[in-house]
């Protein structure tokens, strides 16, 4: 008996169930990491390595094609003390705040209008997406022609309607340039709000409105107490995404004004481009601008992720 027990112990080493669970858990973890590895590698190559490179580059003076020279914090000091950078930050804030505010209001209004039943609603829903769906360069170039101060269609129409007596230089007048590029950005961006909010509106339970009507709620009450809370998570996510995109928006301004006249429409992305490629360029200086602005973008992304997580918890 004794010998049999001893033999059994030899054949089956003492592994407790706790150990087995640990091994299984470790295998599961390793398997998880193995599955994640391709994504980690891809993200590492396309995000982490360039990011680290950009951070290091920001400490160098690096003209295109030329040798890099270590300059310490010089690029950061130069950027932060450059009045043009302050102007670019101010312009970016104005551009983003007005763009987002109007995109929300217009996007929401159009989405609400398109939830109502009316003939041609399907066509209208498609038509409203056109500014967003058009290739950006083509759409913006069309605006460049339409907004031309001398031969543009918009001035011609305004004159024919008797609304103006002298042409408006939308893109070259210091008072008009920033509002104009903001308006074009709104035109291009509001359909994204309409699209997402329209989808969100379809999920609001109609019985809530019926109940509210029985309680005597008017249209405003229904919007404020039912519609808005119901679509708020979607609205927040859409707003944050659009804010990030608008902050980084480059093409619209670059094609319309190139950041001018003077620096009146220069936003941070335009400023970064100018630093990178102005004259024969300084990539290190441009990298410092990108690094300086990165925390703000990360803060927005973190906020966005928190909102999305909260939304998941609510669901």
């Amino acid at each position: 008996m004794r010998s049999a027990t001893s033999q059994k112990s030899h054949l089956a080493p003492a592994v407790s169930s706790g150990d087995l669970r640990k091994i299984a858990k470790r295998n599961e973890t390793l398997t998880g990491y193995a599955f994640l590895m391709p994504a980690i590698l891809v993200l590492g190559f396309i995000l982490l390595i360039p990011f680290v490179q950009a951070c290091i580059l920001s400490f160098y003076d690096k003209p295109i094609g030329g040798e890099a020279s270590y300059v310490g914090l010089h690029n950061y000091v130069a950027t932060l003390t450059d009045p043009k950078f302050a102007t670019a930050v101010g312009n970016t804030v104005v551009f983003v705040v007005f763009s987002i505010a109007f995109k929300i209001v217009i996007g929401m209004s159009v989405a609400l209008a398109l939830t109502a039943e009316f003939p041609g609603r399907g066509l209208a829903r498609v038509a409203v997406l056109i500014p967003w769906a058009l290739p950006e360069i083509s759409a913006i170039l069309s605006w460049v022609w339409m907004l031309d101060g001398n031969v543009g269609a918009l001035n011609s129409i305004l004159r024919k309607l008797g609304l103006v007596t002298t042409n408006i230089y939308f893109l070259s007048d210091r008072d008009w340039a920033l509002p104009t590029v903001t308006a074009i950005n709104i035109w291009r961006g509001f359909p994204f709000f309409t699209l997402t909010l329209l989808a969100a509106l379809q999920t609001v339970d109609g019985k809530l409105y019926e109940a509210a009507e029985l309680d005597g709620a008017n249209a405003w009450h229904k919007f404020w107490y039912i519609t808005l809370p119901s679509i708020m998570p979607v609205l927040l996510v859409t707003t944050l995404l659009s804010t990030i995109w608008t902050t980084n928006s480059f093409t619209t301004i670059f094609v319309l004004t190139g950041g001018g006249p003077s620096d009146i429409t220069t936003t941070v992305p335009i400023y970064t481009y100018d630093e990178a490629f102005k004259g024969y360029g300084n990539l290190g200086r441009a990298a410092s601008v990108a690094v300086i602005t990165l925390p703000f973008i990360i803060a927005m992304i973190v906020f966005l992720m928190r909102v999305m997580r909260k939304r998941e918890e609510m669901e």
Partner: protein
Amino acid sequence: MKKTTSPLYESLVSRRDVLHLAGKSAAFAGFVSATQTLPAAAQSAPTLRIWMGEDYVPAWNDYLPVMIQKVAAEMEINVEVELTPDNDVGRARRNTALESDTLPDIIQGTTADSARLDGLGKLHPIAAEVVERMRGTNGGWTAGIEEFVKGPTGNIFGVPFFTRPWMVHYRTDLFDKIGITTPPATLEDLMEAARAVHNPAEGIYGAGMPYGQADMDGHMVAFPWLHGGAWQNAAGELTVETEENLAGLKAYLRFFEEGLTPQDSLNWGGIGNNNAYLTGLSAIVCNTGSLFAALNRDRPDLAEVTRFGPWPSATANGSPAATTIGFCLNIAHNSPNAELAGQFIEKMLEPENMAPLLEAGSGQAMPVREELTLIDYFQNDPIVGSIVENIVPHARPLTSPGPNTPQYGELVSNNSPYFQDMLHRVLVDGMSAEESLKLFAADGDAVTAKYQ
């Protein structure tokens, strides 16, 4: 500021190795695909990679690759020729090749851009030998053309290809109507003529002067000259803050201060003043042959009533001037076929190859070889002949009176933003011309520091 390249930078930041590998791979892939259909003899022949500039004129773009292939066939070598546009896409491509040190064997460039490549040590010195050899053939180089390709130490960095002078275009039909029948003798006469035809209510502006980023070199380099100044001296040192340059700047600003040019000209791109003239918006513009080519193609009626001239002098006894862009052919410093590339360029520039190309260029390209100035096209075509007669004698390289230096090229070459900034500070921000010139001088100092 210590200027060193650390091992950390080289190992972590420099993308040169990666870009170099990518560039070589692309070149190899192109070579493989190009040689797949070649006979065995051709496969063993060397291959030259050639980047030429895409031009405004379709006929030029059609003929140039054909001519290059013809030369390659005669020399029994292979070529991979590409036309790269003069826009952000083309510049990005060239910058990538520059950064990865994979420039093609032969690359066409403006002399300003080529001076930059020279300053970065990216060009092969063999170009000087080519230029020297060609002094003795086909009548040699046209007078003064070698100045276009001289670096700060007197070194020749590229082989002259063609030049493109800026020409003042006048609407003679409009000026005839008001009795102005002779070309303006002075800048003041030109201003007076512009004022006389200026009628914005009818959609006619006296002039069409840009103050955006494009075309500024043709204007803002000339105006100091007309007043006896220049942005650099003969030694290649920047000379920005001078009375003469300030007078030139102020003279140019008058077009805007008097409203003689459309306000939107501050947003004009490369074709802004072309469009202003072609649409009849502006009665006087200054442009290279691109406008002339467009006139011939799209508005022959307007071409007939257009007269060309250099910028008239600011004073009655001064000299007119025509700012002139030089184009040259460069050989990459690391070309494995540098000698062959030099021979190829010599062959390309022979009259039998260049004459049809210049003719295809419709007057936007002037010859750099004496023998080519004698061809029928430049002798007998009435309009092109008038350019040769009236403009070319006043043509001066953009760098005049100094050499090509990287800092000068960066400060004043086409698409350089510094002139635009100087003008915008005055015309948009309300700064004085003196203050703006001072800031332009500071820009010049900063640019110079980059190359020391």
